[in-house]
């Protein structure tokens, strides 16, 4: 008697969404099964991997990442280099220097970077904001304008600024609107509803439901994503069928497992390996729980996760 499994294919599916344009354009979502459950039904669009650079340039990168960008003098150089790393599907420009509580770089300066990078690489682009809701509204409006026609992702609109971001990124410039809800499943749904009520096309929304580094309250991440996928696929809830994009790097490269030097923690051993494995293990868990795209920092992490995805889909 052979093993017969009941199919776990659902009648509902995750929305498909195209990031970028031309040959390098990528498609997220479309699956009607749980993550990597190819035995239930084929997954047409494998999850995608993005690499993150910041407005801080090479100086802001962890020591162990710098060597991969050897010879890069500008952020544009870095972007070009990043585009050549194995497994990179898209580029995320993290404008963390815009934060008024931090460096408070003027919007114009940041947008100049965005513009130059976009002209230099043909990969799909994600603009990650500085977390300050007022400044982000401004950054996303301008970035949407200079990236007009590029199908870029603005990451992300929050409860406090979804109207501004939705209106500029979604309505005026037809970019992809990220909706950020930090492990709050009810807010995730509400933001999608509010954005669509504003007139943003549901198929142009991607969710950032948040992540934690592995070990740092990761149970909430698993359960949030499990429940979103259950609602989207099993209950057919159209307000949660948006693909999920997860910025992993910004969570994992700030915690002590990644930043403690070998001198600080001799028994922990090689710092670079720790940083990579923290990023890789967090990303693998995110993808297994439901992310359609992850944003990473270390080129080895990108190659590794890309390899894992290819082995699974």
């Amino acid at each position, binding site marked *: *008697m*052979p*093993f017969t*499994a*009941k199919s*776990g294919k659902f009648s509902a599916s995750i929305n498909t969404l195209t990031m970028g344009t031309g040959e390098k354009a990528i498609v997220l979502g479309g699956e009607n099964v749980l993550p*990597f*459950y*190819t*035995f239930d039904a084929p997954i047409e669009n494998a999850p995608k991997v993005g690499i993150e650079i910041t407005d801080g340039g090479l100086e802001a990168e962890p020591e162990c990442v710098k060597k991969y960008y050897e010879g890069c003098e500008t952020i544009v150089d870095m972007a070009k280099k990043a585009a050549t790393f194995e497994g990179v599907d898209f580029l995320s420009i993290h404008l963390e220097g815009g934060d008024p*509580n931090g460096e408070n770089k003027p919007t114009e300066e940041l947008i100049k970077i965005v513009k130059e990078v976009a002209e230099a690489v043909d990969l799909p682009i994600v603009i990650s904001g500085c*977390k300050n809701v007022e400044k982000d509204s401004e950054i996303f409006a301008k970035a949407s304008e200079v990236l007009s026609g590029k199908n870029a992702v603005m990451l992300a609109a929050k409860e406090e600024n979804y109207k501004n971001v939705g209106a500029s990124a979604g309505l005026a410039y037809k970019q992809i609107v990220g909706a950020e809800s930090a492990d709050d499943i009810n807010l995730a749904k509400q933001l999608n509803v509010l954005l669509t009520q504003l007139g943003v096309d549901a198929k142009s929304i991607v969710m950032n439901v948040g992540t934690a*580094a*592995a*070990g*740092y*309250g*990761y*149970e*909430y991440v*698993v*359960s949030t994503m*499990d*429940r979103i996928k*259950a609602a989207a696929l099993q209950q057919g809830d159209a307000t949660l069928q948006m693909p999920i994009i997860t910025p992993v790097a910004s969570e994992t490269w*700030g*915690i*002590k*497992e990644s*930043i403690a030097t070998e001198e600080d923690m001799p*028994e*922990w*051993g*090689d710092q670079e*390996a*720790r940083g*990579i*494995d*923290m990023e*890789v*293990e*967090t*990303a*693998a*868990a995110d*993808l*297994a*729980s439901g992310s359609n795209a992850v944003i990473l920092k270390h080129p*080895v*992490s990108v190659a*590794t*996760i890309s*390899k*894992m995805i290819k*082995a*699974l*889909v």
Partner: protein
Amino acid sequence: MALKGLDIFKLSPKKNCKECGSPTCMAFSMKVAQGAVSIDACPYFSEDAKAAMSEATAPPMKTIKVGAGENEMVLGGETVLFRHEKTFVNKTRYAVDICSCMDDATIEAKVAELKHVDYERIGERMYVEMIDVEYDPASGADRYVEVVKKVAGEGRVLILDCQDVEVAKAALDVCKDAKPVLNGANAQNYEAMSKLATEAGVVLGVYGADENELFDTLAALEKLGNKNLVFNACTSSVKAAFATAVQFRKAAIKDSNRTCGYPSIVNVSKLAKGDSHLQAALLSLFTVKYGSIVIAEKISYAEALPLYGLRQNVFTDPQKPMKVEPGIYRINGADENSICLTTVDFALTYFVVSGELERSGVPCNLIINDAGGLSVLTSWAAGKFSSSSIAKFFQEQDIEGKIKCRKLCIPGKVAVLKGELEAKMPGWEIIVAPREAVQLVKFLKDMQ
């Protein structure tokens, strides 16, 4: 798992004879489902139907014990596919593999490396719990027994990865009291292996070339009466391994397929083929999705730190908050003159706050209150993080005797406590910190 009335009704004689005292078979089935009457009240329920029912009410996944004494550990026993539905009960266990083809020096180095990872995190010991000992026919049976003997005393549960019955018997002879896993049954040898495992009283691990062969061998072993089993996910590819682990768990829990209801072994060492970071990714993948034992080529701190944290998170009971031990946590080399901050013992709060404090680089004493493992606002609302509870905790722990600094920062969310604390804790300057942990770095730096 409880049976629905409908499942019982489908097996019932459907005669409506009323001899059981119920007006219809449907009413009777409903009462049986509720536990109000016994199935035996019906004289016409066939033995086959009763057997099918008792099978259906058995737990969906077997609970399997391996190891002995203080090394005994429990695998399986899960009742849900997703932790939010209830909780996962028995965490994934990790093994490192060695092989009888390796020389002593290599084996010693590998054992030393795996034993190096041994630490505590929120009350849980984090270490490599098992050693997988693979049999290499080329180096012979004696060498295998020698290697097994060599690692048997390392305080780890052994997995005897050996599909040769005679060799397995010899290896079992030297370690069976420690209750290793005999991981060696396949479609050809399962009868002999089952006999061996049963006689030694150990769990039998089952291999199959593919899902069908694996399933058939499990079914054949059950027929022999052996239900003390674990199965190996197919390692022909990552995709095949993931498919076995997920499909068997799903079949067991969702579709009541008991033959699939055993813990799994996933050998990621075989899947990653020497790519250590890919192996780290797979360790994580199979922790989230249904690996009961995961075998790796190596687990150093780089792999372990995220992995054990992840496992601790995934296997927490959603009903019970994770708590850290109350007390003083000295951060960034703080001493008795460093500034004090206080918050609750909810593990997530602790990790987020201590992470930010570490990032600030400012030496400080983080004083964790006993607040029932609840978050700041929840414990405040429940009266477990109040001015009197904080004052009492400081007294009980003799904080004033241990720390000279008299500056205490409280979470911004409970700013209302400032006045009361100043009244109850004379001599202390109470400072209201930001509402969110992410603002702590700036707050501490500005204060300096």
